[in-house]
């Protein structure tokens, strides 16, 4: 294949990775920014989204598009509810202590993973894309659904940004992020803010899971990779910075696409990890994070 089309395909693949990553990582970043909780179970919320998408689409008859839209609404909602419960039952009782919550979310990770294994089973199951549309370019064909994933992720991120900057709820979240005690003094119910932030973060991961499942299939171990990549993205972008997360997701996604195509996927992972190390050494707060 000639260089031009080759690069185009690499960029398209990279863009899809970046879009899914941006969604998943924004949830992780939000939770850390507002709550100062490092959520190790974040990847499992992503997996739950994918698995629930399979459950919903197999239960709802009719055209795949309808079932998929239902999954897109129901799966993140269930996952968000679960996360809110986990917040109330576990994180709140630990007083959001940074170290205790890391250990607690590791426990949560295993509980969710094993629950999925017991209830959903060890198989990878495909979910039909809402539409079968293939773009035939002169050099290669490409899945139209993958491009839809990019657009959908962009729309969700835009909505998230509007929510954070233009609504009262977003304002309250940002206020809690800046100073928890002062927010409390102004009559903000911090417990409720934390619960809804954790739910929102998990819901975003689940949404990414639903979007990705027609490309990848639902499997109980699929949460590992996105967790690692989300951490990479969030560390590079700066914990708690939505803009940083988006830019870092683009950098990691596109470089992953291009490097793994022109060289090897392993090299792409090595370079991403190296970048994390460099950022941690020279700019520990991340590219866009505020100094702690």
């Amino acid at each position: 294949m000639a260089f031009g089309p080759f690069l185009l395909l690499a960029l398209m693949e990279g863009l899809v990775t970046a879009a899914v990553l941006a969604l998943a990582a924004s949830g992780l970043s939000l939770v850390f920014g507002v709550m100062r909780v490092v959520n190790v179970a974040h990847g499992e919320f992503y997996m739950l989204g994918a698995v629930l998408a399979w459950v919903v689409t197999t239960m709802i008859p009719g055209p795949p598009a309808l079932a998929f839209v239902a999954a897109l609404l129901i799966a993140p909602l269930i996952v968000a509810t679960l996360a809110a419960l986990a917040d109330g039952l576990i994180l709140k009782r630990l007083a959001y202590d940074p170290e205790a919550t890391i250990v607690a979310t590791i426990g949560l990770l295993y509980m969710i993973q094993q629950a999925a294994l017991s209830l959903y089973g060890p198989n990878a199951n495909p979910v039909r894309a809402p539409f079968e549309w293939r773009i035939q370019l002169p050099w290669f064909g490409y899945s139209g659904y993958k491009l839809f994933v990019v657009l959908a992720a962009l729309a969700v991120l835009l909505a998230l940004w509007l929510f954070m900057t233009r609504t009262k709820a977003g304002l309250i979240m940002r206020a809690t992020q800046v100073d928890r005690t002062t927010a409390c003094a102004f009559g903000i119910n911090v417990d409720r803010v934390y619960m809804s932030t954790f739910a929102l973060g998990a819901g975003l991961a689940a949404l990414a899971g639903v979007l990705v499942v027609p490309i990848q299939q639902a499997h109980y171990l699929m949460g590992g990779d996105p967790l690692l990549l989300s951490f990479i993205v969030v560390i590079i972008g700066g914990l708690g910075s939505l803009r940083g997360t988006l830019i870092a997701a683009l950098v990691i996604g596109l470089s992953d696409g291009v490097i793994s195509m022109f060289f090897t996927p392993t090299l792409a992972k090595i370079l991403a990890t190296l970048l994390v190390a460099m950022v941690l050494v020279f700019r520990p707060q991340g590219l866009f994070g505020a100094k702690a």
Partner: protein
Amino acid sequence: MTNLLHPSRRGLLMAGGAGLLTAALPGHVAAQGAPIKIGFQLHRTGIGAAYGRWYERTAQAALKAINDGGGIAGRPVELLFEDDATDPKRGSEVVDKLTQSDGCDLVMGTLFSHVVMGSAPRAGELKVPYLVCSEGYHVASGALNRWTLQPGITDVRAQISTMAPWVAANLGKKVTMVFPDYAFGHDHRDFFTTAIQAQGGEVIAQIAVPPTETSFTRYFPQIPTETEVLYHVMVGPAVLTFVKELGEFYGTGAKPALFGFIDSLEAVDTATPGLEFLEGSHFWEAHPRVKPADAGEHEAAYRAAVGVDDNGASVSDAADVSTYSHMFSTWETLYFIKQSMEAAGYTGPADRQKLVEAMEAISDLPYGIERPQGAKRFNGKTHQVFGSQNISQVQGGKLVKVHTTTIEEGVYEDAVDYTTMSF
């Protein structure tokens, strides 16, 4: 009135007699009918789960058939399944547990080659027979030990050397290979590359994919345009994605002929939406999933026993497609164990060495209900069995058998003589 507190004289006598009989019984039972315990290292979870599900069902079916027929040398047989999560580290622990804690006479059943590689050394240390159902060339290559044997399924090297001539003669001579980047995939890479050269063809590109990969489009541009045959063998949960993305990539444009190992589609329905582009392509199969018109006389009985219909799916759920080209190996391995235990006069773990020697002495394994896939020839020196192979074509979304090889076509020179190694 007689009850528990005030028993009658007759009741007391009968109970006493029964008690005496029971006390005398255990010694008698142990001498004649203590069960033979076979440990089964099972991929119940992890990337091998679909294979594990069917390995368990097939082994249970064979176990029932053997026990209904009087067991092994008159003793009943028990199977103890232990999950290894398709993980090499866990694999060696499972061999340990089955042998040391559960007291199994031997261990069998492993499929994934990295788990075999991780577990076989432990079996050698414990001096317990370890019968794998794995296809890997690692047994016959001499990489393992005297205690590891593969009597139920042919290895990749034999499979490939029978496929290469057919591929060169019918599909094309310029081949690009896509394979998983670990032992099993490397066997394919090495043997097919030399086998196709012997036919005047060549492998023009080798594309190794990490076994945990979930997306494949990024690898396809490496396929040279002059490729005549795309040789693919992938395993794990992502295979469906692999085939789908290949279809999206080539679409309606010009595409090379596809030749795959059914491993890419075991447990997957060939009529799944998104797989239409496989239409007309060819697959290696050990045991044709869709019952061929010229199937052997025992095929129907075997399918009924393992609960598989004529399309290769579960009789209770048509969406539950079997791993038909691999699972027969557990059935045939169990019968191989029966045959060798009876030949060795096996009585317990002290006879394990005698048992391996009896296995090594076996050579001809004729077609029968014991070997539903077909007749086999066991090579005691290399611990590897040889058998016939099949090629099927996807026609109307179904696999239709188009070619069967002989056993001889897959035979190659011995690379090792395990019988000269010490126990």
